């Protein structure tokens, strides 16, 4: 079958009334559950997986793809409205999305997130069909040195995302990396910084840090300032709640660039939606003419990470479908669902089960259409949450944060940790230390450590391995540039007379 025939076959599989309904149900369930803190896309798929038991493989995967996209969008909704990122990939969205919500522009931010997600899904579906196999072949040549350098590049860019001071962002990113080393060392089984507390053996859950440093810290900071309401109420009327022509114009190119970047990063096993979202944010901020708006409510600051993380989610299906390698936690859940329904992912999938392979690719597109149709009319409903008086809204946010922190492991220790991190977050954020780099360091830390140690093992301790391999050297050069750029820009500004 040629490409067009294959895609047409996939759409034939997907566009049956039953499968369209499954996609719709999946997107709706995913959005509703994804809104809850503590339940990111992977956990949402895990929780809702039993819904697909007994279905045929194509139908089950179509529904799970809908759940996945719905959960991603649900996480963005709370990031924008309440500064509560449902998952690490949404942290970048809070930077400008929440600022827009405070200005009464939650509607356009939610609208751009939906449109960006739809655009990314469309690009992913086409790219997956056109370039899936060749890209997968390149991706498998990436070894630990390349992943080390790529993760380092992502960590380096946090200086460009965090706030006004690149050094403060870097300090917080490194602190996140240090926090990621708490727990049992995965290589040697040695306890690190656990102080004999068994609850710390598994390390510090990034969800606790996210909830503490974003949701609770935001509430405490607002209360400390003595503000009665943190938000400008969103205007009434559908037209004023949707993105303007100017919003769309500003977001168009960031969406195109972020979709490409996100897809390529997503293809790399372990590349991850977090890396994609932060790299896209940093790239667009660097390319922007008026960087002063970033972090204070730039609509492109929502478009870029939302497009990139959705494109990366699509890209993660490349190694899954072509090679049977799950490139992310969510892809691993999809692989599990395939196994449950008796489908073997890998090079033979396209020959043995074309209905599943092409059906899943076509369902990406369907899922994004459904999500757009479902969520644009819901934008006013979501935005109306911000009309609730803040004195009633913030206790609910606190309860949601506490509940999200508890249900993950049902350990009271996690709740005390949440409170401790909340106090730290309140004190540090008030003093201008941005929280996003801390979460990035914490999330990427384990991948960085594992790949660095594997690289040094491969090279018998020779650090030159990172500059001998071309991709690794290129990523390292990018990392050095990302560190040097703020310093050089600072020096230029200092020399230039005011």
């Amino acid at each position, binding site marked *: 079958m040629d490409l067009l025939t294959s895609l047409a076959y996939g759409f034939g599989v997907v566009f049956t009334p039953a499968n369209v309904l499954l996609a719709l149900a999946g997107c709706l369930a995913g959005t509703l559950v994804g809104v*809850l803190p503590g339940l990111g896309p992977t956990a949402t798929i895990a929780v809702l997986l039993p819904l697909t038991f007994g279905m045929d493989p194509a139908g089950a995967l179509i529904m799970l793809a809908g759940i996945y996209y719905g959960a991603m969008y649900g996480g963005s909704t709370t990031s924008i409205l309440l500064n509560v990122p449902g998952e690490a990939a949404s942290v970048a969205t809070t930077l400008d999305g929440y600022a827009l919500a405070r200005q009464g522009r939650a509607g356009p931010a939610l609208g751009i997130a939906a449109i960006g997600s739809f655009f990314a899904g469309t690009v992913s579906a086409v790219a997956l069909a056109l370039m899936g196999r060749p890209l997968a072949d390149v991706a498998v040549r990436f070894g630990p040195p390349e992943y080390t350098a790529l993760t380092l590049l992502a960590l380096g860019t946090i200086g460009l995302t965090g706030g006004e001071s690149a050094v403060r962002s870097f300090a917080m990113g490194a602190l996140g*990396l*240090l926090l990621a080393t708490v727990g049992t060392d995965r290589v040697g089984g040695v306890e690190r910084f656990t102080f004999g507390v068994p609850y710390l053996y598994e390390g510090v859950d990034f969800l606790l840090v996210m909830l503490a440093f974003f949701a609770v810290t935001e509430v405490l900071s607002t209360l400390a300032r003595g503000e009665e309401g943190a938000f400008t109420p969103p205007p009434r009327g559908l037209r004023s709640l949707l993105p303007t022509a100017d919003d769309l114009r500003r977001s168009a190119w960031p969406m195109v660039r972020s979709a490409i970047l996100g897809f390529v990063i997503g293809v790399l096993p372990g590349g991850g939606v977090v890396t994609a979202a932060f790299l896209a944010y940093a790239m667009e901020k660097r390319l922007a003419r008026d960087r002063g708006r970033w972090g204070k409510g730039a609509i492109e600051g929502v478009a870029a990470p939302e497009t990139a993380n959705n494109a990366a989610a699509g890209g993660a299906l490349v190694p899954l479908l072509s090679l049977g390698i799950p490139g992310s936690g969510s892809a691993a859940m999809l692989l599990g669902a395939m196994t449950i329904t008796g489908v073997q992912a890998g090079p033979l999938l396209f020959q043995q089960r074309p209905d599943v392979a092409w059906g899943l690719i076509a369902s990406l597109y369907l899922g994004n259409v459904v999500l757009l149709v479902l969520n644009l009319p819901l934008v006013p409903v979501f935005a109306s949450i911000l009309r609730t008086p803040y004195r009633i809204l913030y206790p609910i946010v606190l309860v949601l944060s506490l509940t999200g922190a508890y*249900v993950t492991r049902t350990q009271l220790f996690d709740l005390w940790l949440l409170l401790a991190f909340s106090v730290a977050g309140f004190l540090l954020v*008030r003093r201008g230390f941005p929280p996003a780099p801390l979460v990035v360091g914490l999330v990427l830390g384990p991948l960085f450590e594992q790949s660095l*140690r594997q690289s040094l093992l491969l090279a018998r301790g020779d650090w030159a391995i990172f500059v001998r391999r071309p991709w690794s050297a290129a990523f390292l050069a990018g990392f050095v540039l990302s560190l040097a750029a703020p310093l050089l820009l600072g020096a230029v500004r200092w020399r230039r007379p005011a």
Partner: protein
Amino acid sequence: MRARLSGRGDAVAATFIALVGLAGAAGGVSLGLYSGRAPGPGLIPLLAGAAVAVSAGAIALAAWAGPPRPAPPATPEGLRRVVIVLLLMGAWVVLLEPAGYVAATAALLVALLRFVERVPLRVTLAVALATAGGLAALFGGVLGLPLAAWPAWIS
């Protein structure tokens, strides 16, 4: 001493972070950096800790050397509410297992809404019961997550 530190919040915060970094780096060294030619469990803590110490140390030096910066905006009443909110959250953690999720959550919401925010009693009770009951039903019932809605002696 307190007056001298009041304008130096940035410096105090950065110094604290730098000390955490130094402790992490020292902990890394004690864990072992290499085992033969293979990297040991202390290598990343050393690198990360050193990065924290150097960057936060630079911020601290600049902050101690420069003029005192005004504290971020906060009202005495606002700071009092922050402390009360944190104490109430701590009370929720203490109550959660003995009282169950629904009772602990409803109590927290009543305390926050009625006694901290002076929300009318009828609204307070409606919000508290709907939120506590709704979340318990959603997390524990619909999603099947392990959330003890009621105390062990009831269930």
